[in-house]
């Protein structure tokens, strides 16, 4: 009896060990669905395109605060968009998507390429794109995590002083430029790995210089290091190959869905912004016809007005021309158009301001008109990026000047003071970035107070929502957005509730 038992038990245990030691059975945890490593040549271009998507999101944010976009008829429930009764949750996406999107990817590229010669241009380009993303964040949120950011080892990064971050960003640009200069024979970026400049490092340097110019002007910095450098000579546009099925983010937001339905039917232009096109403030048929549906009979509204406000033009994309010969131009050219990170027009107006203030030598008047011409030029570009056949920019700009004869906002020679000249430059910039980089219009409005607003005036002259609950400020606009709810919940040691009616970004004197 006993012996039988032993044999059986021996058999059982033998079996146990055979199965248990079969480690192949357990070595199956290799991910068949997702990559666990990725080459920098795949991460950098994606980060650039992600930055373009952020630029589109910032445009949407700026379009609401900067007076470009209003509520259309047929919709209600806009809530804080009209009252400016801001909540932490309102602009969480601007913050969260920037950090966990392009910034994390750029940080990865920089970390993996640091000190590796083969990837030195990846490193430089990633640094420049990092500056672009950080600057957008600082301009919206002020002090943000920077020195301790992008490190999962520290889950509650402290907030750094915004002005200090600006200084550091300028230094980062300098480092990137120096890297490009020091490595003329480094393996080049390609059209595939660089959807911004297609590997043209001269353009990267020009872009870096223009970003420096923007930050130094905004922070009232010393421009001397920019003497003699080259700035952008063309629009800085990201286009990885957008097409109908993989559309440009602006087209996806405000144009049409892939299936052809309208993406937007709840927003129309503000009467305030439209007044720069229809003659109420300035007359600008040349650009208005390219931008707005049914120009000059485009439905517009003062932000906040919910009584008798017109709906969109049925079935039509609001910010797209439906004028014969001009369809496919303007700000929503089509799904395949590129996404501008910075317009040449903006670069020119920045330079004009620097020249006006004497920080950089040169003729601000000529630069100012180059800016207006560059704006026309961008708007008359077609979906493919080439200038519309038959468009004569000289004639168009001349017609614009003639229609607004002796108005210093267009003919800067008519201005009598530097204040008026600055107003002209900033107002033209405000017009140029309309629905392209509207956030820059909003930033510059906060820095300079231009274009002017008449609180309580006619809708053509009042930039703010007529439902604004902000009573402390003359313009009835908020000064900034709140820190996001994700920080409120997840970075408690550093989060603080800001007063969005009085706390200003460091470069905002108003």
């Amino acid at each position, binding site marked *: 009896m006993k012996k*039988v038992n032993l044999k059986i038990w021996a058999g059982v245990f033998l079996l*146990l060990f055979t199965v*248990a030691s079969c480690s192949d*059975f357990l070595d199956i945890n290799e*991910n068949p669905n*997702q990559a666990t490593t990725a080459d920098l040549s795949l991460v950098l271009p*994606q980060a650039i395109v992600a930055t373009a998507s952020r630029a589109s999101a910032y445009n949407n944010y700026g379009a609401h605060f900067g007076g470009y976009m209003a509520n259309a008829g047929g919709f209600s429930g806009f809530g804080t968009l009209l009252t400016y009764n801001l*909540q932490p949750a309102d602009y969480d996406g601007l913050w969260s998507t920037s950090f966990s999107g392009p910034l994390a990817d750029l940080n990865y590229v920089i970390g993996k390429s640091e000190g590796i010669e083969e990837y030195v241009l990846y490193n430089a380009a990633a640094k420049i794109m990092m500056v672009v993303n950080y600057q957008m964040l600082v301009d919206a949120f002020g002090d943000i995590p920077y020195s301790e950011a992008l490190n999962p080892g520290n889950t509650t990064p402290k907030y750094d002083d915004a002005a200090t971050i600006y200084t550091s960003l300028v230094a980062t640009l300098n480092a990137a430029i120096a890297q490009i200069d020091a490595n003329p024979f480094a393996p080049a970026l390609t059209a595939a790995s660089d959807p911004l400049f297609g590997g043209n490092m001269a353009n990267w340097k020009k872009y870096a210089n223009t970003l420096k110019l923007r930050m130094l002007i905004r922070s009232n910095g010393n421009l001397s290091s920019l003497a003699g450098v080259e700035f952008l000579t063309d629009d800085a546009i990201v286009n990885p190959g957008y097409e109908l099925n993989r559309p440009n983010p602006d087209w996806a937001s405000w144009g049409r869905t892939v299936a052809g339905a309208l993406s937007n039917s709840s927003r129309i232009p503000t009467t305030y912004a439209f007044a720069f096109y229809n003659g109420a403030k300035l007359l600008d048929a040349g650009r208005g016809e390219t931008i707005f549906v049914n120009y000059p009979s485009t439905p517009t509204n003062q932000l906040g007005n919910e009584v008798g406000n017109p709906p969109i033009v049925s079935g039509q994309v609001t910010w797209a021309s439906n004028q014969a010969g001009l369809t496919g131009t303007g700000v929503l050219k089509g799904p395949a158009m590129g996404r501008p990170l910075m317009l040449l027009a903006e670069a020119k107006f920045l330079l004009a301001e620097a020249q006006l203030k004497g920080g950089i030598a040169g003729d601000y008047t000529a630069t100012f008109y180059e800016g207006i011409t560059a704006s026309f030029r961008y708007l008359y570009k077609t979906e493919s990026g080439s200038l519309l056949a038959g468009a004569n920019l000289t004639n168009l700009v001349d017609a614009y000047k003639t229609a607004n004869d002796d108005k210093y906002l267009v003919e800067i020679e008519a201005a009598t003071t530097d204040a008026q000249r600055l107003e002209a430059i900033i107002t033209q910039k405000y017009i140029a970035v309309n629905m392209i980089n509207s956030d820059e219009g909003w930033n510059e409005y906060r820095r300079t107070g231009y274009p002017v607003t008449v609180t309580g005036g006619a809708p053509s002259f009042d930039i703010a929502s007529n439902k604004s609950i902000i009573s402390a400020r003359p313009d009835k606009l908020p000064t900034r957005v709140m820190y996001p709810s994700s*920080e409120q919940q*997840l970075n408690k040691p550093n989060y603080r509730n800001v007063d969005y009616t009085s706390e200003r970004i460091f470069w905002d004197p108003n």
Partner: protein
Amino acid sequence: MKKILQLGMLLMLMAPIEGLFAQERTISGKVVAQEDNSPVPGVNIVIKGTGSGTATDLDGKYTIQVPAGATLVFTSIGFKSQEIVVGSRTTIDVQMTLEVSQLNEVVVTAGGLVVQRRELGNQATTIKATDLTQGKASNVAAGLAGKVPGLLVSAVSSGVNPNYRIVLRGNRSLLGNNQALLILDGVITPSAMLGNLNPEDIEDIQVLNGSGAAALYGSDASNGALIVTTKRGKSGAPEIKVSHTTTLEQVSYLPQLQREFGSGTTPDTPPSYTAYENQQYGPRFDGSIVVIGKPLADGSIQQVPYSATKKDARTAFWETGIQQQTDFSISASDDKSKLFLAGQRYTQESTVPFDKFSRYSVRANIDRKISNRLNAAIQTYYIANVYDISSAVGSAYNDVLMSPAHVDITKYKDWRNNPYANPNGYYNEYYDNPYFTLSNNRTDTKNNYLQTSMELKWNPIDPLTITGRLGYNSRNVFSKSTTGKFTFSPYTKSISGGSKTDIPGGVSESGAYETQLLFDFFGEYKTKITEDFSLNVVGGVQTRDNTSKSLNVSVSGLVISDLYNVSNSTTNLGGGAGFGHASQVGVYGDIRLGFRDFIYLHATGRNDWRSVLAKENRSFFYPAVDVSLILSDAIPSLKDASWLDALKIRGGYSQVGQVNLGQQYWGAYQLSATFGQGSGYPYSGNGGFTLGDVVVSPNLKPEITTSVEGGFDLDLNEYGASIGATFYKSNTVDQTVNVQVSRATGYTSMRMNVGEVENKGIETYLRATPIQTSYGLSASVQVTYTLNRNEVIALADGNADLTLSTFGGSRIVAKKGYPFPYLEVSDYKRTAEGKVIVDAATGMPSIAADYIQVGTTSPPHILGLSGSVKYRGFTLGGTAEYRNGHYIYNGVTTSFDFSGAGIRNTWFDRARFVFPNSVYEDPESPGTYIENTNLTTYTGGADFWTSGSYNTGIGANYTHSAGFWKIREISLRYDFPASWLAPAKVIKAANVSLQGRNLFIWTPKTNIYTDPEYSANGADSNAIGYISISQTPPGRYFGATISLTF
């Protein structure tokens, strides 16, 4: 269980019965079990005081000679003995009731092993088929609610084939699975199977509340287990059962809607009527005739009285659901084989218009004795279910609430032919006809489940049994979702601005399979070491292998309307695929030492190897011990106590490891951060990758749950009462959690081992049969009460809380020092005394910066009541349940207050009002507050109620107690007497029954919305405590069943 007892009785039949001596009279009769009227063979019948008697035969019949004035004593193991005075009767039929003291009851435990209940050191409850199917619930889970101490069954959704969440002893794991493990005929089975089992196939369900009892099942058993045993073929004559149930479902618990104001929108001064508006902030109803909508192209327009329709159309929209269930089963056997075959067809028409569901199942359970020492068993279960439902039920419900009370939306069902129902002519400018929404957005899903297992038991020598078992589960699912193309007419577009945009249509198709292969091999050695000591040793190995694959394709933008094929599109195909594979090996041992049948020491140990963990952390061991002591057998004075039948005390300690790396692919591939194509890539031949948002901490380990429990079971002789209580405490450490981190880290979350959750509680039960008469009236009751208190003891450094889910102005968190899950909501700015601070100029409140603490979302208190009354053939049974101490947030602000349909926004008659319980700041001395008695809000209409800052964004406005009392089931059954059926010969038994389920629900007054059992996040999410508009109103069920046995 009863089967096994009967086997014992048959053996006893063969025992010699004492010779009979001369009697004066002959008495005959039949002995049946009170539980189900089945004959009880082998009942000893003794003439009191003589020691002489007889026993019942296979059909439960007996004949006996008795002297005048005799008393008969009926006894049988497992049943209570009965004494009956013969009197002048010649026929005495007896119903035997089960002995409530069930210490000798046979219980299935881990691995399919059986032990007597006296040996168990942990809490376990048996639910029998009759209790489970009393209310004829189509879902097994529904039949469990309120019947088991410690078990929380929540119906988390409405509609067809609703989902249930099943949790034992509270939520242990922060983000991992907390649902009980399902064991079907000894095989670990995906929990989704429970909702697809045919309840009529089930013999019984053992509920093992704690991880200790289930430890041998491996690491998934840390949540306790439900051990489902299906019916087997019965010995004896073949038996065929046929039954049919028809059930009607009626939407019963509706949100409170206002019926005073018609359509109108902001601004609200003064409210004006808008004929085509969805918002209901217009003037008060006055009965005048108004137009609704805009004119059709031919100029015609609808006119209705401006008053609420007689029957609220938003209630009438929900239809009467019909469920039809037909069951068939056959049981047959010979001396070597037993066979059980069962089939079910179940069809359901939903309360949601157009929605349907059906389910077909087939089961074959076969046992075969191959030789005296080798037995084989095989069971297969196949089930197919088909859903034909709308994919937009939530938006349709929203559409319903976006319709004012003076419009009868039920007239618009025929949207294809009725011009006012067609989207072109539908009166509502901004929201669709709900019938159109439902019918234009459809999903067809077909699921095929196969569950099969094969088992060989070899008995080489008497004390040793070697068992090998192979189990296989699979699910194949195909699903197709369609959205119809709709182009608005040029006329409609011309009068509608931006609100009518064409629907491009679309179609998506998906297919997936999941399989599980489970292999068990174990030996059990049972012996008596000496006269006093018994020993039971088990050793075994288990391997498990899971795979799954899924594919999906979709397009939007159809070319040809009504052709739903992914090739019929203007756009590129979108799609994806995924594959998962995980495996595990477990080796275990189990030893049970008994002394004189009154004390048992039991220890188990198991080591697991899991493929989803890194090699160095893959192997983990966990032990468990328990002890059971039968005091009533151990202590002579208790043994002889006449009031006491049995008293057992028990206690246990256990550890179980659980790997919680997410439910997808059983946690495979979670150890490294991943990259995916991002930002719309690929573009024109180029790829672009982005770093995933989750960073993984190296060295992920299993979670370990350590539990202790102790309790007693007391059986009294009086009233067959039994009382039991179990105290437990479990601590789960090293939780695997995706901790959300500041986005400034570049990630959204970090996967790491952190935190500890403690659960403590009491489970109690009381069962009794207070009425038991010889003329056939009996009544029994069961009360169960469960108290669970849990607390998050620790979380990640620097993280005071962990957000599980956010919704509107609320969030569900795990918060250190608080119960889990925990609800926090936004609130108005208040003073320290809790008074709402309103603006001294406008009288309006404002939102506070921080969320307030509300409470747990899982009920600490659960009380279950069930009972039955039997008289002759009638059985009346019922179950009620009470839960309280928890809270819920209704994320329905848009549908109820933005729309104006809800009752809240009429509480102040839509006029300016003094905000209740409010103060305003003293302009003279800032920082002090003046009681507000006269300062009214500057608006009390749409501008107030639709505003996020004043109303809808304030989570506290939509938060309330989730407590309830529910009458879950009531059933009345009549069994036709055998004497009626006898002449027909073919029918052996017949019964009819009426049953109602979800009959009544009582909730606190603050719950003006819906059934607080629902969870918007589904059954698998621990973030319970949210309700969204996708949970349509709950139904009340009324059914009738006829059942025949041949």
